[in-house]
């Protein structure tokens, strides 16, 4: 990983579960040292990839943190505590302290109870991070929509639904992100969003909820070879393959 890997730029770094299952490797090495910008989706993608490799027999994970101390701090906080067999290669330097940019560190959710705890944790920490009520309610709505979508449509995913939420240090946007690696190739994203709209699915309701809360949001969805982005209206484009669903919502703040 190198450079700016925020938002949709993170999609390309997901481990493909089919390849992970086929490879008998002992070590997963994550070279994050040249990353210059990271956000919640970066952390969700990394954590999902780690979980996937561990589920497929990888015995050790080495994580080379970003050299830039600010980016290191952001990613360290967004990644949260990693599984025990993961090592941060820091050459004796201490890991950064917790800052006020992580709302929910990347967490693998495997059932509704996990999703409920995540939602409640967002509410619990919101005050410390000075999020307004509208903002944390919106963040919870996104976490619940992404999490529910993943639990239903990627129930066979070995990494669960990884959810992460944080405050983007440069723009101060609140980012809620999810990755599930649960397949989904062949899904027509335009049809899926339209279906979600008519059947009151969670994803398509997010813009309406934001409107009621008078918040400006941007949404990014990717599955298979399709991508959809919403700022004022949905725009669709083809992209290189993304294993499973990836989603992120930004609450844009002025």
């Amino acid at each position: 990983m190198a450079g700016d890997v925020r938002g949709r730029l993170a999609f390309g770094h997901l481990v493909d579960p089919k390849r992970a299952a086929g490879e008998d490797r002992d070590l997963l090495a994550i070279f994050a040292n040249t990353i210059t910008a990271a956000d919640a989706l970066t952390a969700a993608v990394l954590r999902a990839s780690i979980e996937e490799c561990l589920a497929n027999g990888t015995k050790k994970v080495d994580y080379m943190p970003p050299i830039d101390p600010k980016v290191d701090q952001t990613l360290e906080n967004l990644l949260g505590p990693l599984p025990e067999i993961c090592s941060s290669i820091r050459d004796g330097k201490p890991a950064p302290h917790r800052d006020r940019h992580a709302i929910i560190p990347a967490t693998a959710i495997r059932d509704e109870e996990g999703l409920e705890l995540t939602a409640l944790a967002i509410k619990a920490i919101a005050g410390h991070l000075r999020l307004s009520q509208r903002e944390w309610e919106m963040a919870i709505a996104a976490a619940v929509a992404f999490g529910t979508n993943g639990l239903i449509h990627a129930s066979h995913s070995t990494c669960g639904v990884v959810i992460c939420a944080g405050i983007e240090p440069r723009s101060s946007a609140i980012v809620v992100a999810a990755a599930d690696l649960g397949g989904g190739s062949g899904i027509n994203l335009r049809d899926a969003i339209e279906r979600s709209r008519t059947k009151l699915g969670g994803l398509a309701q997010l813009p309406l909820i934001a409107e009621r809360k008078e918040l400006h949001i941007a949404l990014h969805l990717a599955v298979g070879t399709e991508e959809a982005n919403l700022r004022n209206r949905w725009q669709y484009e083809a992209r290189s393959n993304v294993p499973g669903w990836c989603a992120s919502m930004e609450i844009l703040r002025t």
Partner: protein
Amino acid sequence: MSVRLVDLREFGRVLATREKGRNAADLIQEALEESDGIVLSFVGVEVASPSFLDEILIRLRGALSGENSRVVVVTGLNGDVSESLELVLNHRKMALAHLKKNRVELIGGSEQLAETLAAANEFGGPFKATELAERLKVKLPNLHQRLKSLGETGIVARTVDSTAKKGRRFDYRTFDASKAKNLIPS
């Protein structure tokens, strides 16, 4: 009037999936079959997704269609759940009775329906369509249309008036807030 409480907190503090919504709807339907009125309590519920709420509303409308004699109110809505509920009600073009501080108000629906419910509440008990039409100064067919909409989700219930000498007449009622006093969890 027998009133039953359906405590949605039993399904969790975060009500997200349609499956959970269907389970809650089963309980609601059961309660409706065994009572004259139900209180849907959201006390302690932090988040209710549109999908969850949609399952409940679809079932409510189905269960109350036809000659409805049961009243339904929701209560204990926090701001977020209230917004989500309004969103779903608008999508489905429905309304619900909301019990808030011992008053029954409309959530969702048009101004005319809110005005109709407010006027119906003023009777403080059973009333006839003609009486309400007179109070609202609207024509009877117009009022029947409003009462039909309010009946869809149990905001107003009706029972056949057995004393009517000519044709079929109904007695209408709204939810009696005093019946719910000891039911709602704190």
